[in-house]
């Protein structure tokens, strides 16, 4: 129980990913598959971001005072780790790119077959 609560962020990301995976593999509608893919990737983003988070932490920007006298000591422990967040910026870009390509393909499939249901497409393909 303690494991469950202490590491709840991991359980959440795993849950989100599984929902996404289910959508990708089990759904018949291509758009639903794409949505599943989005959820799946979001799970990973949640995972990364949560690892960098810290209770009571703050953004890692060093405060320079505007006056002359304000010069605080830099306390690294107070800051959240910025690297995972930065990595996720890239990952988000990638996932948006993937989403775009996926939607584009889905669009072309729709114009070609007039449907987005996989079984109907397969029927047409195998004819």
């Amino acid at each position: 129980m303690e494991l469950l609560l202490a590491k709840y962020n991991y359980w959440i990301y795993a849950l989100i990913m599984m929902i996404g995976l289910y959508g990708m593999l089990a759904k018949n509608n291509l758009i639903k598959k794409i949505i599943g893919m989005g959820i799946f990737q979001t799970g990973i983003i949640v995972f990364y971001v949560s690892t960098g988070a810290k209770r009571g932490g703050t953004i890692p920007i060093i405060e320079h005072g505007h006056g002359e006298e304000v010069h605080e000591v830099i306390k690294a422990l107070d800051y959240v780790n910025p690297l995972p967040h930065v990595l996720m910026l890239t990952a988000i870009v990638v996932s948006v790119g993937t989403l775009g390509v996926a939607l584009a393909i889905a669009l072309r499939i729709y114009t070609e077959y007039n449907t987005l249901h996989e079984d109907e497409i397969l029927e047409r393909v195998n004819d």
Partner: protein
Amino acid sequence: MIDTTQFPALIVVIPLLSAFIVCMAGCFNRRLCQPLTVLALAGSCWASFATLGQVVKSGAIHYRLGGWAPPMGIEYVIDHLNGLVLVVITTVALLAAVFAKISVAEELPTRINLFYTLYLLLVTGLLGMTITGDAFNLYVLLEISALTTYALITIGQPRALHASFNYLMIGTIGASLYLLGVGHLYIMTGSLNIADLAVILPELYSSRAILVAFILIMVGIWAKMAFFPMHSWLPNAYTYAPNGTSCLIAPLMTKVSVYIMLRVMFSLFTPAYVYQYLSMANAIVWLAVIAIISGSLLALAQKDFKKMLTYLIIAEVGYMVGGAWLANEYGITGAILHILNDALMTLCLFLAAGAIIYKVGGQQLTDLKGIFHRMPVTMTAFMVGALSMIGVPPTAGFFSKWYLILGGIQAARWEFVTALLFSSLVNAVLFFRIIEIGYFETPEDKGVNEAPLSMLAPLLLVAVSLVVVGIYSGDIVSTIIQYAVPKGI
């Protein structure tokens, strides 16, 4: 004397920048695209050869992008292993680009500029994946190459659409699992640099999070390389892609993924961890055996010869993964040598197939009637590729198979040895079936009707190189590959 210190960056930067130039140039004049692409790849190819020469002469090269020191900055690391893979990528891409000219002009007349732009981006992605020394950077480039591949496949006939969509789903799952695995490593170590991770990780080998990370990364890569049982996306995607595309992706995509697997196994982790700490090797060799046998048998069942070749790729992936997991020097040498050989022979077969499809207009086995009379030169080259696939000396395919079987014998993995021999025999049946159709059955029109020179030249070059690489495989192993095999297995 030319300054070679910037070459590692140039290998990647040339195709990247050229992609934009080609895109621009294509707006003004479509005929500029292909020559520019060839030019760019030739430059990249030259740089990669020079870099490999440098590595052979004086050991691994570390190149810091923007001068930032690792582990903060991203660095490029070129050692014997990826030096060889870089040469393979640039060479194959160059030859396939020369070949693509006519086939793209025929298949995609309205999208020439898009094709070559994507083509260059794909090559950039592959090169970047190979050259980078950073685990996260690798993910990004993995996705760059994957996204361009989806597009390059879809650009062709309508049947490719659904295949490409499936590929996109599996590919995304694979890349995401890889990313997740890297995330686990990052949590445990706080580093993303491969060399840095390799130093930190051994202390943490008992951790379960590291184990999970390793498995996630492996499964992710296997999905990308179509390793059994995650192979189902590959045949359709490669079959219905335009020929210009399949000539590039069929030889390269799986091979680069195999390289990534080796990199993760030996550079990120250590052979000791992979082979001794984890007791997975046994199961994975068995999976490889199933991959080889099922790939071969499914190839036998095909009526479409391009699809037949794609199933062979699945079997070949089994060769390499199995070899790498035999956990001995011969097996790993064989796997690395096979990256080179298989890239060449797959290229040879797909180029020949592309030329035939261009001339005959169909890709069913029955379209090959009397093909030996109609396209004697193409078929000669095709035969060289086929013999290499079967593993007849002195073609290259024989020698990597030699190492793989020797590794199997040494590890007493008789199931792997049997699978390799079985697939050789099935390949013999496959290709001699094509010979029977092409040689005994008479075509409708009898005259000789060869493919144009821009298709034949790269094809013949690859065919000759298969024999040359075969004959010199002793030298390739002793100057390059033996340094790429991890010590102390």
